[in-house]
């Protein structure tokens, strides 16, 4: 093992601290903002010294936004639920459709398999705004506009290619012989997929699901155009804080904290398993 001299270690520590500060500062600032009123947020020069208040969170949770113009009803908790429901359902459907498809693309070399896989990926190339106009018209004709089902369907454009391509790579990394060994021992093709391929690609599927969840959660344009107030996720719902009497920075900050909390928690939770899965692979080599 290489020896690291003390000076180098200190410098390294300083460098890492700087990087972390740089990236974490905006988030830290937003957390601080969420406990302040508009007055303290907007004072010049800005200061980290203030009397914390939880009224921003109160307003969000109760759904009553107090502005100078009066009390405004906001559906933030409903939006949060919408985000959660849309993302979870989209990822669930994406996994059900994408994982078997990824396995097929990884294991079976059939005519046109590469073309189909690429076509699915190419959905991500098109700018969403370009797709949205025709999509809106079709959705209105089909009665899918402003429905959970319609949104989840559109979310597959984001989720499915991601899951498909990431999971496919994990399946390809599993030595085919492990599956052959299981099949020759008297198990069907389907049992091999369930008992060998799925568990071995587990960490990869978890990573893909996590990424897909974050992408779905952060989506803005599709939901903005295709959903009305009661189906909107937080990303769109946050627009409600731009009111006639000014921008509610404190509530926006609190809204951001609340809306990143689930993905943040999910990432922290899943990270342990991801690292575990990846290091298991490393021991093998």
């Amino acid at each position, binding site marked *: 093992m290489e020896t690291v001299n003390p000076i180098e270690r200190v410098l390294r520590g300083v460098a890492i601290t700087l990087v972390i500060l740089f990236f974490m500062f905006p988030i830290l600032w937003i957390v601080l903002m969420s406990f302040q009123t508009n007055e303290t947020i907007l004072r010049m020069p800005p200061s980290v010294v203030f009397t914390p208040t939880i009224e921003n969170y109160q307003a969000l949770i109760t759904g009553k936004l107090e502005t100078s113009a009066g009390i405004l009803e906001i559906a933030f908790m409903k939006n949060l639920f919408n985000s959660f429901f849309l993302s979870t359902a989209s990822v669930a459907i994406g996994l059900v459709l994408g994982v078997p498809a990824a396995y097929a693309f990884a294991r079976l070399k059939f005519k046109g398999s590469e073309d189909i896989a690429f076509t699915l990926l190419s959905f991500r190339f098109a700018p969403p705004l370009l797709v949205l106009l025709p999509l809106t018209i079709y959705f209105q004709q089909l009665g899918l506009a402003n429905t959970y089902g319609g949104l989840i369907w559109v979310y597959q454009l984001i989720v499915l290619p991601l899951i498909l391509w990431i999971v496919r790579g994990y399946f390809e990394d599993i030595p*085919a*012989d492990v599956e*052959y060994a299981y099949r020759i021992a008297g198990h069907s093709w389907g049992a091999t997929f369930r008992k060998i391929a799925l568990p071995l690609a587990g960490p990869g599927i978890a990573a893909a699901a996590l990424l897909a969840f974050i992408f779905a959660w952060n989506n803005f344009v599709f939901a903005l155009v295709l959903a009305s107030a009661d189906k909107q996720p937080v990303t769109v719902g946050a627009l409600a804080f731009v009111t006639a009497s000014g921008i509610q920075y404190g509530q926006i900050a609190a809204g951001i904290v609340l809306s990143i909390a689930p993905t943040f928690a999910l990432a922290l939770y899943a990270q342990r398993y991801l690292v575990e899965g990846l290091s298991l692979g490393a021991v093998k080599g």
Partner: protein
Amino acid sequence: MTVQLSLKAVDKFYGPISKGVHAVKNINMDIHKGEIIALLGSSGCGKTSTLRMVAGFEDTSRGTITLAGREIHRLPPVKRNVAMAFEGYSLYPTVTVRENIAFALKAARLPEAEVAAKVTEVAEMLEITDILDRYPTSISGGQQQRASLARALVRDADLHLLDEPMGQLEPQLRTLLRGRIKHYIKERGLTAILVTHDQTEANAMADRIAVMEGGVLQQFASPEEIKEAPANLFTGTFVGEPPMNVFPATVTEAGGMIHLDLQGGLDLKYPVSEFSDPVRKAMVASRQIVLGVRPYAVHRSDQGAPAQVVANQWLGDQTHIAASFAGGAIVLVEHDFADVVLGQDIRVQLKPEDLHVFDAKTGQALSHGAELA
């Protein structure tokens, strides 16, 4: 003897027939029940493709494969009743070695006590009882290989395919297990195909050896026959350690003598009487031949042809001497310590009864000693 496995006109193309890579070419083979067969050949010779067609992991492009009276070449692997030990071990990483070995037995719904007894027996035979409860990722390559071998041997299948089953083992263990595995297979009357490039392993374990090269089955015969009567130049030079010495030569008959003109202006003369009649006629008819002689059949003798020592290795029980000879090199094996130094001039004798003669154009064997091929 009943035929257990039969390959008839089997071809393997990767890609479309006629355009794809022709990996296995028209293989015909009958393997009897209770036989151990070694598939011997260099990398890319088609032996693994052949094995995988039998196991069902590769489609058979043409031809038929019959196992225990059933045509199996269109069946999925699960229906073939074949056991296989993989070169890359391919253990299931999520379960212990014991469960790995027992998997197929459990799938076949054997009673638990019987499964346990079988697993213990095969584990004892392969010296892996102490790692049965460990996970594949926590044991060494050699142990994984033995676990993989145990997983195949524990099954009561119609055919056992062993792909390089001992490549990762240390030499002493390999020698020990070679005997034990052979005994285990023979005792149970199992039929096995062993893929290897270790000739000692093939010779020690197999009843018959199938030598493959370029997708073609070169020779399928007992180890003795392959050594004493190689069917062609490839088998002759591929099987045998150190390899057979080969020299292109032109044959002429003049004045009651057979002249073998080697490269470098060397003319070996033998009285006609030293060759059997048919062999002499075949040689003269072929004219352009390749002479083959096993290193242990080359002797130093004052009547021999000149050669100059370029290497001398004492291996503890035999000496390998290499000498420049007839524009190339000749290797001879002596069973004592040979007191020769580099650069020393020696004379080596090639006796007609030790010569393997191959046709230079086709590579097919013409004769082995006094016998026609």
